[in-house]
């Protein structure tokens, strides 16, 4: 490119325009060819399945028998299905408790590791390490730690402090908090990295101006850092919330949805209906509920975003 800087400037506008016209002829064909591989896969594995999912939700279909149309029966069943409501409640409480904790803690972690401290790169690496491991591996690592006897490391430490054994994974009360703890351990480092990028994007001059004006660190945090990092917070909130509503891997290994469905989630219930009870129609109706839930959350978030996201 650098070899022809003059030839470009010598070209008249008219010639350039006529070249563009001749190009235009092949442009549609080129676009078609560029899009083809992706669009084929997109249609076959994403677009058509989405529509199909909607259609299947009106069927009674056990895969082995032939499907029969049953109208809204699957949707009517949802209203009286206690396990569905419990799974929905569990998914929502996991998300609405974990996500705010996640955002607060990962922002604080990012602020701490953005300071000029020795060895901060080393600490950043350790904090990010769980994010590269699969949720399955993370759940396996944590299961023995959370064991409900003094064999479990955490209960052992608690017993040294004189605290009775906590049945982390086997009591309906403690199971969800335990899943949230493990979920946080896995995700904090990931969102720390996202917040670090956001923090580094805030111009230094703002902080310098604030310190000249004699602002204390609390003022700086609430009046500079928080507003200026709000686009990153919005992104993190959206990603984290959508991801949380799809929780499956962690609970399926850590608690298997138990005890007594205390950690059963929407996706797990879709999986159970589809591939353990072989009720394709009902599972599809459930997955539409998942989609609608996520869709509503996204809409609500976008609607309120201009009230607090500073652009």
């Amino acid at each position, binding site marked *: *490119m650098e070899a*022809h800087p003059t*030839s*470009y400037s010598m070209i008249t506008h008219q010639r*350039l325009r006529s070249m563009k016209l001749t*190009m235009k002829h*092949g442009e549609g064909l080129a*676009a078609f060819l*560029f899009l083809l*591989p*992706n669009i084929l*896969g*997109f249609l076959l*594995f*994403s677009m058509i*399945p*989405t529509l*199909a*999912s909607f259609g*299947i939700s009106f069927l009674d279909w056990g895969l082995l028998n032939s499907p029969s149309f049953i109208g809204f029966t699957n949707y009517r069943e949802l209203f009286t299905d206690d396990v569905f409501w419990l799974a929905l409640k569990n998914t929502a409480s996991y998300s609405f408790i974990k996500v705010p904790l996640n955002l607060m803690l990962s922002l604080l972690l990012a602020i*701490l590791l953005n*300071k000029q*401290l*020795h060895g*901060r790169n080393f*600490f950043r*690496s*350790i*904090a*990010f390490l769980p994010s590269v*491991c*699969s949720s*399955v*591996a993370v759940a*396996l690592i*944590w299961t*023995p730690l959370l064991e409900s006897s003094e*064999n479990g*490391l955490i209960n052992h430490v608690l017993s040294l402090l004189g605290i009775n054994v906590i049945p982390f994974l086997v009591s309906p009360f403690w199971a969800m908090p335990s899943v949230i703890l493990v979920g946080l351990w896995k995700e904090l480092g*990931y969102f720390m*990295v*996202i917040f670090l*990028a956001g923090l580094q994007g805030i111009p230094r001059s703002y902080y310098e101006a604030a310190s000249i004006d004699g602002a204390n660190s609390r003022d700086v945090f609430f009046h500079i850092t928080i507003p200026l990092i709000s*686009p*990153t917070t919005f*992104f993190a909130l959206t990603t984290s919330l959508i991801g949380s*509503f*799809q929780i499956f891997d962690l609970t399926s*290994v850590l608690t298997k949805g138990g005890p007594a469905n205390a950690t059963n989630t929407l*996706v797990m219930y879709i*999986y159970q209906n*589809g591939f353990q009870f072989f009720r*394709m129609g009902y599972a599809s109706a459930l*997955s*539409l509920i*998942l*989609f609608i839930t*996520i*869709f509503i959350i*996204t809409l609500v978030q976008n609607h309120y975003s201009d009230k607090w996201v500073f652009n």
Partner: protein
Amino acid sequence: MKTQVATIQWRKVTKNWVWYVLLVLLAAFFFIPFWWMIATSFKTYSEVYTKQYSLIPTSFNFDNYREVFNALPFGVYLWNTIKVSSLVIIGTLTTSSMAAYAFARLRFKGRDVLFFLYLATLMIPRQVVLIPNFIIFRELGLLDTHWSLILSGIFTAYGTFLLRQFFLSIPKELEEAAVIDGYGYWARFVHIIIPLSNAALTTLLIITLLAIWNEYLYALVFLQSDVNRTLTLGIALLRGDFDVKWNQVMAATLISIAPIVLVYLSAQRYFVEGIALTGVKG
């Protein structure tokens, strides 16, 4: 002079001691579970279930590793995971960058409608299309083959969206100059756009790698035979209901995360910069 510098540095450390204490506590929170996995994987069964909480195992015996390797075909799992992951990464990078180029640079009928459809599917969780995908792969006879996992992993709207946004930020003038030199669409795509998009392509590569390497639900639904399993699926099935030997499970877990952890440690900068970029663009 040297001691002076040292005292100044030491003063800095003592001034910030609160932060260092916090840092050490946080490092412990993140690292102890990993350390406990490593320690347990070297312990004997009786050592795990006696209440001696040694953070360091009394002896480094590799029996657990030997037994786990005898019980599970880890070599096959690893190969399957590498095969599936590489094909998904190659497929995603190629097809999304091509589609992104068309969306960013070419004018054609229905472009905006089509792009809107892509954007709309960004909001559709993958679990929604799980059942239809299962039926499609059953009809195609691809269940229990790696193709089901590969094909369902390649075509994400996210990749196309991310790359399109990045391509739009590349100055058009660079391509206009190339048109005069007689470059066609393909040549401009390969020789101008792709070389300038390393950052975005790395991001997509890292995100795709983490997603497919750690994929569980789709693997669980699509793959049945042991010889087809991936690492994540293979170790998930170790959590039986009764009599789990945690020292062996920890050995297996360590083996399963070792490859991706090694990749991360050797290419850390790319992981961190790649993830950071997803947040900056928003």
